[in-house]
C-alpha cells in the first residue's frame, strides 16, 4: 500500500477500475470503496457546447504537497484504509475525465465521507486553475462561493472565492 503514490498529477487519462483494484489490492480489511470522478462539461456559465476545451494549469510541487496534506487530514478524521487522488492537467475536452478521488475503508460511511471531504478540500485549496476555450475566446474560470461553503461544512474555512 505504501509503495504506491497517493497523489498523481498527469496529462494522461486514468482507468477507474485499475485505480480501485490497485487501491484495495491485498487489504482484506477493506469492506467499502467509494470513488468520485470529475469530468469536463460542455458548458459552464454559458449554453450547451460553449466550452470547447479546458486547459488546466497547476503549481508543481505545491499541488502534490497540498493534496498529500488533505489525505493526511482525511486519515486523521475518518477511519479509512487508503486514499488515492489522480488529477489531470493540460488540455482536456468535454467528456474527458479530470479528477479521481478514491477511498477504501472497513465500512461505507467512512469512505463516503472521506471521499467528499477530500474533494471539497481539493476544490478550494489545491493550486489548479482552469481556462475555458469558448467561441468568444479564452477565459479563466471563476472560483465559486458554493465550493467554499462545501468545505465550511467540515469546519474548515476556505477563503478561496473571496
Amino acid at each position, binding site marked *: 500500500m505504501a509503495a504506491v503514490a497517493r497523489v498523481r498529477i498527469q496529462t494522461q487519462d486514468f482507468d477507474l477500475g485499475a485505480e480501485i483494484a490497485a487501491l484495495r489490492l491485498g487489504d482484506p480489511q477493506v469492506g467499502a470503496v467509494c470513488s468520485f470522478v470529475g469530468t469536463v462539461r460542455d458548458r459552464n456559465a454559458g449554453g450547451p457546447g460553449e466550452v470547447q476545451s479546458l486547459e488546466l494549469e497547476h*503549481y508543481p510541487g505545491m499541488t502534490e504537497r497540498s493534496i498529500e496534506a488533505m489525505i493526511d487530514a482525511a486519515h486523521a478524521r475518518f477511519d479509512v484504509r487508503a486514499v488515492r487522488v489522480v488529477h489531470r492537467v493540460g488540455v482536456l475536452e468535454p467528456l474527458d475525465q479530470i479528477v479521481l478521488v478514491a477511498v477504501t475503508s472497513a465500512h461505507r460511511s467512512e469512505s463516503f465521507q472521506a471521499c467528499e471531504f477530500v*474533494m471539497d478540500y481539493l476544490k478550494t485549496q489545491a*493550486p489548479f486553475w482552469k*481556462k475555458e476555450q469558448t467561441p468568444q475566446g479564452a477565459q479563466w474560470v471563476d472560483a465559486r462561493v458554493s465550493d467554499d461553503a462545501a468545505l465550511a461544512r467540515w469546519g474548515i474555512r476556505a477563503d478561496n472565492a473571496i
Partner: protein
Amino acid sequence: MTTVHIKYFASIREAIGHSTEVLDTEAATLGDLRDELIARGGVYAELLAPGRAVRMALNQVMAGEGAALPAQAEVAFFPPVTGG
C-alpha cells in the same frame, strides 16, 4: 536583505508576462513583499491591489500577509483556485 524566489500563476502570470523572478528584498513579511510589488505600479499595482482576489503561498503552503519571510523563500501569487 533576503532573496525571494517568486512565482506567478494563471491570470496573474499571463498579465505580468512572466512566471518567475528572483528578488532581493527588505520585506519582512508576505504582506510587505506584496506592497513592494504594488509599489512598482502598472500591472503589479493593478493585479495585487488590496481587495483583489489574490492568494499567496510561502514555501508551497497557503499563507497570509502576516507570514514572515525566511531566507531563500519561495513565494507564489495566484488567483483563487479552480481545480477538481
